[in-house]
């Protein structure tokens, strides 16, 4: 009995020792190259050009000096048919395995996005290392140009792009789309995906990333873009404007207002003859931040005037954006989904002609603006 117990303890000890050696497929940080940005461009013969921006932990033992982040950025480029194949192909150039769990952004070249991105996203959805919070962007030139450019502002360009997108919430003039949002829109019957536009500005000879405007997709193909103004219109309608600045001309003088908050909804109304009206009720709270030459006007009068002017401005932006999407035939608002929810009985009859119905729909924007504060002073200065 005692002998059996000893054998049992011995076997248990061996098992525990075995399990202490680590995981079977363990991946040490020094054996991996962290992918931080991925770019996809159109290549010849229907192939795709993959640009991978990666960063790795230094493995050099002789160099005790602290390496700058810049020197640790590695760029890999491959051309082929499948992304998985190209990622594996990089092992011919690198003795370390690519790890895409920390990928910050996927940038599509404009031409590539026009061809369709669904097949390329399949890899990022299927791979167990890939994450859903990776940002999707479209370059107005090529993805390679974006990922291979070293700017002064950021040591790791892909991380910089991610931070830039996060900062966009402060001005609400660019969308921020991640893989999850994009995939959900792609999986929808009617909703069209959008993504941020990115380009390189070379003012003063120094390259700098600029995120502005919106790429509009129909199914998975890029069909057009929205400028900053229309993007703001889209964000107003989608209830995504929480911060930002509104610049208007009041009494022919510039006034700068801060957005303190907004609430918006989309309410489609389907008439019996299958005519669609889309209502956009919006309420906005603003604060006066800078006004010039408005002497002699009372605060009440000024705020009433500003409320009216801003209301017209928002109305115009939303309508312009909606009309633009009607031209593209892209329901980026998810109106179709809302119609399906509200009129499930009619949906089966109209879903096949949804494109036409959307193009012919009438937007009705009602904006309620309230100027809530005037800052620290109640009159114009000087």
């Amino acid at each position, binding site marked *: 009995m005692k002998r059996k117990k000893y054998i049992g303890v011995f076997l248990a000890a061996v098992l525990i020792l075995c399990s202490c050696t680590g995981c079977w497929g363990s991946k040490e940080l020094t054996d991996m190259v962290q992918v931080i940005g991925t770019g996809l461009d159109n290549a010849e013969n229907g192939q795709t050009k993959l640009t991978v921006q990666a960063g790795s932990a230094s493995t050099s033992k002789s160099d005790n000096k602290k390496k700058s982040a810049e020197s640790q950025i590695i760029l890999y480029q491959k051309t082929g048919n499948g992304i998985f194949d190209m990622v594996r192909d990089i092992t011919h150039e690198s003795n370390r395995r690519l790890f895409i769990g920390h990928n910050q952004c996927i940038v599509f070249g404009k031409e590539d996005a026009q061809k369709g991105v669904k097949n390329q996203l399949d890899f990022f959805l299927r791979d*167990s290392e890939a994450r*859903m919070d990776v940002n999707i962007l479209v370059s107005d030139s090529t993805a390679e140009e974006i990922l291979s450019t070293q700017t002064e502002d950021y040591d790791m360009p892909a991380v910089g792009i991610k931070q830039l997108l996060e900062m966009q919430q402060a001005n609400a003039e660019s969308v921020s789309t991640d893989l999850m949002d994009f995939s*959900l829109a792609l999986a929808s019957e009617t909703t069209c995906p959008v993504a941020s536009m990115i380009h390189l500005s070379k003012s003063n000879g120094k390259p700098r990333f600029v995120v502005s405007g919106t790429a509009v997709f129909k199914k998975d193909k890029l069909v057009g873009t929205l400028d900053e103004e229309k993007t703001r219109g889209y964000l107003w309608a989608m209830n995504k404007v929480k911060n930002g600045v509104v610049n208007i001309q009041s009494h022919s003088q510039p006034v700068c207002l801060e957005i303190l908050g907004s609430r918006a909804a989309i309410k489609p109304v389907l008439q019996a003859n299958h005519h669609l009206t889309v209502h956009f009720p919006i309420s906005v709270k603003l604060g006066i931040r800078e006004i010039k030459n408005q002497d002699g006007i009372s605060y009440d009068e000024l705020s009433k005037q500003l409320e009216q002017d801003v209301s017209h401005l928002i109305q115009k932006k939303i309508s312009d954006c909606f009309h633009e999407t009607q031209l593209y035939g892209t329901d980026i608002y998810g109106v179709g989904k809302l119609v399906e*929810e509200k009129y499930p009985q009619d949906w089966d009859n109209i879903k096949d002609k949804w494109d036409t119905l959307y193009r012919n729909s009438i937007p009705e924007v009602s904006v309620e603006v309230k100027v809530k504060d005037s800052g620290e002073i109640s009159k114009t200065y000087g």
Partner: protein
Amino acid sequence: MKKTKISSSQLFYTIICYIQSFSIVMNFSFGISGRDTWFALLLGSGIAFLSLRINIAIMQHFPGKTLVEINSILYGRKVGKILSLFYLLYFLFLSSVNLHDIGDFVGLSILPETPTVVILVSFMIVCGWAVMKGLRVIVRYSAAFSWITFIAFIVTTILVSSKVNWHNLLPVLTTAPKSILQSAWITSFIPLSSAVLQMVAPNVCKPNEISKILTKGLWTGSLFMIAVIIRDTAVWGNMAKSFVVPAYETLRLSGFSEVFQGMDVVYAVILITLEFFKIALLESVLLSGFSQLTNQKSHPKIMAVIVSVLMALIASQIFPSIPRHIVFAQKTEPFILSIFEFFLPCISLLRIKWTCRSRS
């Protein structure tokens, strides 16, 4: 056969834990009923409740007797033993399929480069060890596992609340009724099966509470599963159909800062723990059924090793790929399950009624 005594609360948490453990395989139903899966599960709970009432009626007629003992009394020694043998094979099938699930899940989520057979063998070593310690030791942990899962569910739901879009659940009930019924039939047996409970329930110290506890446990477990399905649907909409483990994909989203984004492994460990509980319970039931069938007081410990090896072997060979497994679970498995969970208990109950009537 010496019976292990367990408390009423242990039985209650055992049922909940058993049902919770199926949250990694709900893609079977999502694939059929999409965003209306929550309703299919609600309907499935109704069917499972009916099936449970049948099993309770049988158990109440033979208080303190397990499924194997009831079969022998009801159908005679020979036929009863053959029937019980089929039930044991059914438990072996159930545990092997679930073991295969865990192999797929671990391989997919945590250890992609580790051969599946290594995962299965390691898992079965732990399960076999637990089984050797007895049913009482296994069910003792059910309350802790259940509460950990409840807490993890609440925490992760709060963390993914920014990704929740209630519109993803709308419009309600637009899936074809045939698909909803098919999905309800699957859910009534795959997470909510009750045959295994017929082997555990007779061990409860207070037999008069069995009916109440089983019913309460079934509905608590069902409501938990419905809540999980509603959360996953609200996050993913119809896209939940595409994932192999929708619940895990939701959990992967629930990082609460840049630092804590890679928390997947913690959630995966909770799901693996639940699977461990279920497989250990099934193996324990299988072994106690075997000893009852062979009229032994308790099963020899070597049997636990043999069954563990057998389960690992079957699990490693049973399905060639995950999509094949999903198709099998959607089309074939519900019929196998319904024979043991619904039709055979119905026949047993009819036989009891018929015997009672002919006696009177």
